[in-house]
Every structure is written in structure tokens, then in C-alpha cells.
């Protein structure tokens, strides 16, 4: 059964079409929703919460219709917004207890759940201090806690790693993984970084300009997006990038130019050796050889194999 289902969902604003006939299905576990900024991720979440009416098409969350049953959806779903949304003048405990009550929990239950949830997200003694003095990491935890306090069946997390340092990012991703597994709450988490979500999510949906680009299990995804970033320099000043690109393509590797860099698809361990040997053979200077940090752009760059005729979507 899918927890979220959209059929031809379209949202047009006067200036821009945010969602363009989007049809997706989201099941249990952790689902990553990946797209560049402005791809329509936040708009989709607003529609799924029943806060923003769609232009056409339909969508349901937990088998409830988003247009007519928004209130019921919001009782069973949690939402962590992308932007800062915390008042500075109350403590985390006060805020979470209050919001739990607004979700319909009786006072005692609200207090008990708040203490539980704040402990789970890792806020200790500081939860009694006003939020105004919190670090970004702590604020993100408070935002996450308020999304979980009423024990939802599904949570929408909009860019939860935004503004976090690498350590905070890892902790947040681990926490999200736990929510999906230990807590048994389905998660739809958005990010503009594909690499970030692939180890957290069970499946990944990629959208671009409001359209579905790709939806699949994470395992499939990692395979095809295992990319090596190569940067070379020609000491004689020639076009080193394209020379190496063609040579690699002749060896049967999938190669894509990306700015001044090359993205080489990693087949297995030997790919590294092939690249190294070719660079040496061509007499180029190797500036960088790095496992690519997968970004959304990786999925639709041009392909050398097609003899200079660029076409999208290498898959």
C-alpha cells in the first residue's frame, strides 16, 4: 500500500509551474525526495499537508484526500519545515508541550511525550532554556521534536540537514534512519544532495522543475550513480578534458563532462587503474581523482558515448 499517492498533480503559480503532472507513490520506510532548489519539493509537501490547493490532478496521504481531508491528514502526519520557525522567547519544553496540545494530546500526555521526544532527538538540560540561545543543530532538533511529538504515522522532513556542519549532518541522518526503522514512522525527507540521502533512504524520488525524473530503490540508484570525478591539466595547453574523455569512452567507460571536470562511471575497482593509465599515456597532469559527491545534476549531464551529440539522462 502506498502512504502517499499523487496522480497528475499540477500546481501553477502566476509566474511558474511548480509541479507539472507529477505522479508518485511513496511507501513505508524512509523515502528521499531529491531535487535542486526550486524543483517543487516544498510545494509538494504543502499540498500533501492540505495547506495549498493544487491546480489539477489528485493526491492522497494515508488514503485521505488532500483537498477535502486536510485536517485529518495533519492529525496523523508530522511536518518539519525547511525554514526557521521557532519563537526565541520560550524554552524547547514549553514549545513542544504547547504544540503537542495543539495536536490534540491531553495536558499530561503532552508533557510526557514532549520529554520522551526531546530525549530521543538528543536535547538534554538545554531544553529548559529559551530557544533564542540555541545553535543551529539544536534548533533543527527542536523542529524535528515538534514533528514527532504527537506520534505521527508519517513525517515530512524538509531539508533537515540545512545549515548543519558535517558532524551535525551525520547525526541528523542517523536520527532520520532511526525514525524510519526503530520508531516505525514512515519518512519523506527532502534534500538537494542525492549523496546525502542514498545511505539514509530505502527509496529515492528525484524531481526536477516539478516533474518526476526518477523513482527507484536506493540500491539501484547508487549503482548507476557511482561516479568518479576527474580533473586533468594539459601542460601543452590543449583540450585535455575532451582528449581524456574520448580515450575513456573508447575503453568502453561511460564518461560525462561536467564543467571543467569529467564524471566517469565506476564499473569496478579497475576503473581507477584505467583512468590512471590513460592520464599517464596521454601525458596529462592529474589534478583530482575523487569519488563524486552525487548531486542532482549528475543524473542529467551529456554523454560522450553518443559521439559528440549531447543527450540527457544517461540511464
Amino acid at each position, binding site marked *: 500500500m502506498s502512504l502517499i499517492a499523487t496522480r497528475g498533480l499540477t500546481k501553477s503559480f502566476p509566474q511558474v509551474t511548480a509541479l507539472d503532472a507529477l505522479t508518485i507513490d511513496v511507501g513505508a520506510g524512509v523515502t528521499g525526495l531529491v531535487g535542486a532548489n526550486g524543483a517543487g519539493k516544498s510545494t509538494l509537501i504543502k499540498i500533501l499537508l492540505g495547506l495549498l490547493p493544487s491546480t489539477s490532478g489528485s493526491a492522497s496521504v494515508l488514503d485521505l484526500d488532500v483537498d477535502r481531508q486536510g485536517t485529518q491528514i495533519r*492529525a496523523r502526519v508530522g511536518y518539519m519545515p525547511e525554514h526557521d*520557525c521557532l*519563537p526565541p522567547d520560550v524554552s524547547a519544553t514549553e514549545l513542544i508541550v504547547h504544540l503537542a496540545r*495543539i495536536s490534540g494530546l491531553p495536558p499530561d500526555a503532552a508533557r510526557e511525550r514532549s520529554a520522551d521526544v526531546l530525549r530521543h532527538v538528543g536535547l538534554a538540560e538545554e531544553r529548559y532554556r529559551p530557544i533564542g540561545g540555541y545553535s543551529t543543530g539544536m534548533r533543527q532538533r527542536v523542529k524535528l521534536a515538534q514533528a514527532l511529538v*504527537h506520534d505521527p504515522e508519517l513525517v515530512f522532513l524538509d531539508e533537515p540537514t540545512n545549515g548543519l556542519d558535517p558532524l551535525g549532518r551525520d547525526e541528523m541522518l542517523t536520527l532520520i534512519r532511526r525514525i524510519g526503522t526503530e520508531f516505525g514512522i514512515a519518512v519523506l525527507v527532502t534534500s538537494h544532495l542525492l549523496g546525502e540521502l542514498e545511505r539514509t533512504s530505502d527509496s529515492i524520488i528525484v524531481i526536477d522543475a516539478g516533474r518526476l525524473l526518477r523513482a527507484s530503490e536506493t540500491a539501484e540508484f547508487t549503482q548507476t550513480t557511482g561516479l568518479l570525478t576527474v580533473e586533468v591539466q594539459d601542460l601543452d595547453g590543449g583540450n585535455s578534458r575532451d582528449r581524456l574523455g574520448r580515450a575513456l569512452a573508447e575503453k568502453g567507460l561511460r564518461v560525462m563532462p561536467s564543467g571543467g571536470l569529467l564524471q566517469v562511471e565506476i564499473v569496478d575497482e579497475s576503473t581507477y587503474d584505467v583512468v590512471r593509465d590513460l592520464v599517464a599515456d596521454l601525458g596529462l597532469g592529474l589534478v583530482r581523482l575523487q569519488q563524486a559527491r552525487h548531486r542532482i545534476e549528475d543524473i542529467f549531464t551529456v554523454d560522450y558515448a553518443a559521439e559528440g551529440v549531447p543527450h540527457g539522462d544517461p540511464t
Partner: protein
Amino acid sequence: MAIPPDPAAARRSVIHDIGYRKYDGPRLGEAYTWRTLYELGARHCFGLGRAARYKVLPMMLLAIMLLPALIIVGVQVMVDIDEQVLPYSRYAVIMQLVISVFVAVQAPALISRDLRYRVITLYLARPLRVDTYVYARVAALATGLLVLTGLPLLLLYAGSLLSGLSPGSETTDLLTGLLGVLILSLMLACVGAVVSAMTTRRGFAIAAIITALVMSYTVGATVQGIADEQGETDVAGYAGLLSPFTLVDGIQVALLDAEASTPEGPPGVAGGLVFLAVALAVVVGSMVLLLWRYRKVAGR
């Protein structure tokens, strides 16, 4: 006799990480949500349940509001006066500056804050409809104002009864006064909420509300004074519509037979009905504006 500790029990009591617990208790409906939001808002009007620094200003304003009533009661009891020194219906007009400051400080605290820090997003992501949120916030502010304006009247009433004034006529006058401050509280809450919802800057909202309330009264009083001089009694009467304070005063004078605070009240019962209609239009119009504004915010 001391009970020897049971070593077995001590060994058994260990702290377990019980992990995530599901909640399967009751989930209450919108009436409960409304009440939660309303009660907290009304308490916050006076800084109740908050740190001391949030109590200082509203409590000070309440004290200033009560002070004249307290003095009047003291004099009344000591100097045996057989008439109400200050009519209930005029108290709010006389103390309007204090009331205006209260609206200017508390309306933005209650309304602008959620918009400025986007806390509204967290409210609207819950099973709470936009309209319910708006009604609860305005009702909370109106309640705060009603306490501020109604409490001195009750104090005056207690003093009057203590000094032996006729309970019958005093009760009628008190009810007239309370009805007046009820209408006033509703109107001021609505106007304050609209101004606060249009700006997310607290300081700006404070200045705008104070200016609007003080200016409207000054302009109204000036027009009234000039028109009265010129013998244009109708114009002078209707000039009372310009300020919420004189508007309520007009309703009390024309429809409830209260003593006027202005040189000229509304002309007759018909004029009183016009005043009442305008008060109603202000409340309804403000609510329409507020709901429109918040529905737009909800989709963002």
C-alpha cells in the same frame, strides 16, 4: 527498626532505555485545541505563566487602570457621597491612553510574533484550521482587554455598594458600562490584530496602533469641537464615529441612556443604531481581512 536492603531488589532495579514509545491515548478535537490556544493567549496578555519580565508592563498598565477607581472608592467611602462620582460608562474614555498602550503592546506580542518567527507554520501543520487560530487569538486579546477595562468598573461598583448607593440603579449602570467595554474590547482587539497581522515588525506595529488610536481620537474630538461651535450638532454627533472610544460612548449614550463623554452624542436612537452598525462593521470587516491574510500565509 531499619529494614535491611534487599540485595536482590537492588540488583533488579536497573534503568532501561525503553526506546521509542507509541502513543495510543486520546486525541482531542478542535474544541480542545481552540481552548488551549485561547487560554494560553489570554494568560499571556498579562504575562501569566511566563518569565517576570513579560509581566512587568501589562501588570503596570492594569495597576494604572485600577488606581483612579481605587481612589474614587476610597473617597466615596470616607466622604459619604450619594452619587457616583465617575459614571461607569465614561471610565474607558478617560483612561483611553492606558488602554491604547495595552493594545499596542499586547496585540503585536500575540499576533505579529507568530508571523515574524513563522511559528504559524507549526500551528497550521496541525489539525487546526486557519480560522480557528485567528478566532482564538482575537478572542484571547479581547479577553485581556475586557479584564483591563472591566475590572475597574467592578471595583467602582463594589465601592458604590459599600457607601450605600442604590443597588438597583448601580447595577443597571454597571451593566451598561460592562456592555460598553465589551464592545470596545472586541473592536480594539480586531483593529489591533489587523494592524499586527499586516506587519511582522513588532516595533512598527506598536507605533502604528498607538498612532491610529490616539490620532483618531484627536481628529474626532477636533472635528466635534469645531462642528459644535458652528452649531452643526449632527456633524458633531457623527464625528464620534472616528474613534473606537467615542464610538462606544455614543452607543451607550444613544441606546443605553448613559452620560456622554463628548460635547455631542449621536443624534437620537437612529444615530445610536448607526453607531452600533459601524461597530459591528469594524469587527466583521477586521475578521474578513484577518482571515484573508492568514489564508494567504497558510499556503506559503
